[in-house]
């Protein structure tokens, strides 16, 4: 009951936030929290619940970004159609790569996902029609319109779209947690052979997990493209993005509903504010702090900040 009230209060607070904070910067920080939060939530479905650690999620993000952007720039379609197409393409791609990659387990799987990410990035860098290494601009259209998914006057609409993506990811995760598929995912995570011996179709459950995860990640990619108006292989297909998505979830708490959101709420402001305070010279400082935080978390509480909070909560009651 208390928890429900607190959640509703939090939801109300984020809904009125743009009315209170009218400057672009605080809104931008929140948008980035929502975006990275939703990416980490999507990653968490595959890695946290199903136990398949992917370090190649930038591929799905990139598919979302490139599909919508190319459809806008080359065919004049609305980015919303591109968003749906990008998600669908990411799902299809995930199923195709999953066949060989899921034959590997544990660390070998993680390494294979890095390889997939690097291959796709290299291919796009050499693909002239898609802009190659120079990237693609989203054609600017005025005036602002929801149809064109471009808002130059105010970030408020971006804010709500990003919030919507995050809430969608959370809703899917919540549904999964309670559905039998969520249990199958966790069974696969904890003991593949035992799951198989009970009749769980391990391969099919993994394919399901990566499909959901890939589709949600691609939605974030389209959002990013429409927010930044420029994508290139370095910004949307890089290994560092894949690792960042993973770090956000690990810091907050893998395999928990709120962990990825908490991780984003801590890491994104850290990154944005160090950039503001230190400018270009502070470029990598946020990464140094991430690294330190991850080490502290790994040693003290592998369940992440959410796990730490749960432990403190138990300590207070007990």
């Amino acid at each position, binding site marked *: 009951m208390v928890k429900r009230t607190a959640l509703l209060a939090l939801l109300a607070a984020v809904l009125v936030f743009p009315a209170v904070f009218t400057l672009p910067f605080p809104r931008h920080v929140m948008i980035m929290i929502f975006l990275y939060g939703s990416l980490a939530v999507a990653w968490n479905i595959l890695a946290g619940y199903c136990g398949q650690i992917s370090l190649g999620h930038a591929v799905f993000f990139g598919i979302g970004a490139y599909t919508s952007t190319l459809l806008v720039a080359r065919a004049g379609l609305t980015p919303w159609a591109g968003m749906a197409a990008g998600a669908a393409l990411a799902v299809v791609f995930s199923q195709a790569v999953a066949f060989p990659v899921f034959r590997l387990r544990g660390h070998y799987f993680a390494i294979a996902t890095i390889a997939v990410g690097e291959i796709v990035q290299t291919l796009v860098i050499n693909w002239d029609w898609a802009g190659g290494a120079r990237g693609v601009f989203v054609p600017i259209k005025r005036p602002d319109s929801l149809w064109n998914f471009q808002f130059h006057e105010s970030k408020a609409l971006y804010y709500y779209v990003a919030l919507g993506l995050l809430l969608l990811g959370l809703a899917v995760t919540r549904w999964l947690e309670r559905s*039998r598929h969520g*249990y199958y995912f*966790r*069974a696969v995570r904890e003991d593949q052979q*035992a799951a198989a011996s*009970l*009749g769980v179709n391990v391969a099919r459950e993994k394919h399901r997990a990566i499909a959901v995860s890939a589709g949600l990640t691609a939605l974030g990619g389209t959002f990013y493209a429409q927010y930044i108006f420029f994508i290139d292989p370095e910004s949307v297909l890089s290994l560092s993005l894949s690792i960042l998505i993973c770090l956000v979830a690990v810091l907050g708490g893998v395999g928990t509903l709120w962990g990825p959101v908490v991780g984003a709420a801590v890491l994104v402001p850290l990154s944005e504010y160090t950039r503001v305070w230190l400018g270009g010279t502070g470029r990598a400082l946020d990464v140094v702090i991430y690294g330190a935080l991850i080490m502290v978390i790994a040693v003290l509480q592998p369940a992440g900040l959410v796990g730490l909070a749960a432990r403190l909560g138990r300590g207070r009651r007990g």
Partner: protein
Amino acid sequence: MRALLEVRDLDVLLGDYQVLWGARLAVAPGEIVALLGPNGAGKSTLLNTVSGLLRPRAGAITLDGAPITGLPAHRIVGRGVGHVLERRRLFPYLTVRQNVWLGAYHPGARAGREAQFERVARLFPVVTARGAQLAHTLSGGEQQMVALARGLMARPRLLMIDEPFLGLAPRVVAELAEAIRAINREGVTILFIEQNVELALSLAGRGYVLESGRSVLDGTAEALRRSPGVRRIFLGG
């Protein structure tokens, strides 16, 4: 007598290493059969191959006369073969109740799972008494009961149990043996692995002995108990 499960001339390799050499056994409906043999004889490999976790290089496995050789594990569960793995292999961070429900994965089991859960909980009260506890917090004996309960959720005709008594206190062993008899009385055929010959043959009606991957002996519990071959294999005498 038509066999429920029949294994013929099974060759299984783990990597490059051949573990089973022409292994065979047959289990009739309603029986309790023990699979005996020293460490490394290939007992677990045999069960893992029957349940589809491993693929044989050669040989045939039939269930009720229909071949199931090489089918994936989830299909074989759907045919009515349950498999409780060695060392229980519960999902440690799921609750007892969640563990048991996970046993009702295949579509056939999903339909009647509430009724089956009640039946299973009657056999193993620990399933409801400790339902909300994480599986890894249970004692070894309780975990084994939960593993059996989970294996029964798919309503198997044949339940294969890999070393159910491993590491349990004598009192718990007796309790568990009684539970296995009760499962059998409800019409489930049992094939189990055990290294303690005396214990195994007190529970089983018949037994098979594997040695170095070959089926070397079989017979009724009575015959095996008196067999000099069993004495030689297990006591080295």
